[in-house]
């Protein structure tokens, strides 16, 4: 393989890098612009200045946002609590369900699989009120439970895990069963650890889902002390006189920071997968 590489650095490869770098720029620019804008005054943002550096940059937007409510830290920890518990539940519930739907054989399996997919197809806008009434009847309004439990399983991710396990070489598991491991320990000690890259992918998107979720908290949470960060930041938005983009951008950066940290933590799982044939 090494030799093949050495011969390859041709025009094609150079082209590839040019395209990669150009695409990286297209991808990176809006994100960097958002970060830059969070340090700029409103006037400069709406003034159509697309540059990333400006002499007027300051921490004003951040001090404003962080000083606007005494509950800020509380909201942050509310979000963290809901997201961490929610993600943990999702990882186990979705992975188990995805495994069950792909690797285990039992009557009605494919019907359940299709039934779950069908549930995904009804647009969410029409489910808001029914969901609200269900939570109200269960006495769950204005509680963290309302934010965690209804989202503790996710059909999309069950499906993702199912598709992953379809590809998963069953020889590994069979070897483990020869070693005398039972069904359940085989799942938790062999299959789940080997699914790490996909589970990490799932975890980061689920975490982001909880962290950024807005509609749920907006409808279900009544008391300010239970606000999540997204909801709290949104409540600063004035309904008159246009959007304060400077504050919006600072708020967006604040709420994106934990996700970047989570991404970096899970990064090594994305980057270094466990090759089945032992190659790392």
């Amino acid at each position, binding site marked *: 393989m090494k030799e093949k590489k050495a011969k390859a650095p041709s025009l094609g490869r150079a082209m590839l890098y040019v395209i990669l770098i150009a695409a990286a720029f297209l991808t990176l620019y809006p994100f960097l612009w958002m970060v830059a804008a969070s340090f700029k005054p409103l006037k400069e943002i709406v003034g159509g200045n697309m540059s990333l550096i400006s002499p007027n940059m300051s921490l004003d937007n951040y001090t404003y946002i962080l000083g606007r409510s005494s509950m800020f830290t509380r909201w942050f920890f509310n979000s963290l609590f809901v997201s961490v518990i929610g993600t943990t539940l999702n990882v186990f519930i979705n992975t188990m369900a995805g495994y069950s739907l792909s690797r285990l054989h039992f009557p009605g399996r494919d019907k359940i699989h299709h039934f779950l997919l069908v549930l995904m197809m009804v647009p969410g806008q029409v489910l808001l*009120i029914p969901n609200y009434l269900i939570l109200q009847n269960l006495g769950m309004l204005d509680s963290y439970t309302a934010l965690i439990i209804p989202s503790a399983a996710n059909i999309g991710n069950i499906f993702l895990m199912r598709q992953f396990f379809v590809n998963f070489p069953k020889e590994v598991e069979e070897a483990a069963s020869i070693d005398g491991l039972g069904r359940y320990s085989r799942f938790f000690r062999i299959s789940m650890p080997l699914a790490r890259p996909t589970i990490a992918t799932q975890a980061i998107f689920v975490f982001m889902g909880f962290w950024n979720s807005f509609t749920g908290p907006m409808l279900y949470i009544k*008391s300010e002390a239970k606000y999540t960060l997204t909801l709290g930041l949104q409540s600063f938005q004035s309904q*008159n006189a246009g959007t304060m983009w400077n504050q919006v951008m600072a708020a967006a950066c604040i709420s994106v920071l934990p996700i970047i940290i989570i991404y970096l933590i899970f990064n090594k799982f994305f980057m270094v997968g466990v090759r089945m044939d032992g190659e790392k």
Partner: protein
Amino acid sequence: MKKILAWAAAAALALSMTACGSTSSGSQLAGSTGGEGGEGGYAGTTLTVGIWGGNDQEAAAINQVKADFEALTGCTVELKTYTDYNTQIQADFIGKTAPDVFYVDGNMFPFYSQLGVMEPLDPAEMEADKYYENLIGAFTAEDGTLYCIPKDVSTLALYYNIDLLEEAGYTADDIPATYEEMPEFLSALQAKMDELYGPNQIAAMTYNQDLSRNIPILTNGGAEICDAEGNSTLSNPDVVANLEFMLNFVHEGLWKTPADMGLGWNGEVFGTGKAVIMEEGNWVYGTLVKDYSDINFGVKTMPTYKGVEASMSFTVGYGIFSGSENKELAKEWIKYACGIDGMNTWCSDAGCLPSRPDVAEAMDVESDPVWAMHSEMTSIAIPWQMEDTCSIINSAYQNFLPLAVSGEMSAEEAMVQADQQANSEIANAG
């Protein structure tokens, strides 16, 4: 098996949901007399007030009103800030979990007043005659029942950029007082701006494709955009003639939308010096002073059209939830917040116009030229309110106006389309 169980559970839940409404509202109504206790006798009671988010000044102002009211009555006030008002309050009404007293936007009033979710108010008890008559009218349902008390009002006025005018060799006095004279002035102004700053960099004047802004021209001469049943009549010849007059500005390149300039709203365009003239509400005043402090601006009265003076007014009121357990206290809140002291606090701190003349006088709005102008507009303003189908008609209008603007359709063709769409949507409603 599991599947059957799940379906059974689902069915049971669905049934309990349809049944729950009546029982819970019944029990809440039974408890509604519990809160009575007279002035100062509300210790231990919590009143929830539903509001939507405002800027810093507004947030400080509402908190001040809240603190004063708590001191007065001994109750605790909890403010609930809505972020997506129409979605959230509808869920709250359906779940019977709405706040005791809440903001109601004047243009949404006809819709909310017919849902039976608001408590009727006694005009005598609420001293309705102390408020501007057109604002009380805006909160009175068709059957004559009063449901909300206006807490403030905003009006449109004409804003101009003094420096840009000067560069073009004009003063504020050169801005015509009538729309009929506007085109000539604006084309000269636009030519100057193009010459000084390059083509299309600065708009002579901005406009919005929105009924809430275009009504003064569109309904001139008694043209009706909506009939008594709430059906859209945008394509009637009188409206179309007025619309053609308006479109003339656009086709001549004299009016630009904020989106044409790559921005979100007039305030941003004007604030960044990309428009010489705009028509805006008083909410822009604060942000012009604070965020765009280098813009040197003045205000004028809205131009007349065919000799008719007109502006738009936007009002917000307080309504009481019909399922509230604290109706008496809620009334006390309205009486205080919309009374002389409370409204004075709210309007002076938040920066908005009082909805009653005695407070306007007490606040001395005349001392500030911008406030004085907006206050002057109140009497000639058309309240932004139509039948309960207002937002449907406005959506249809916004939807098809661009086709008339681009020239793809005539004004009449576009409005016929808008009517068709609005009326089919209205037929599907309810």
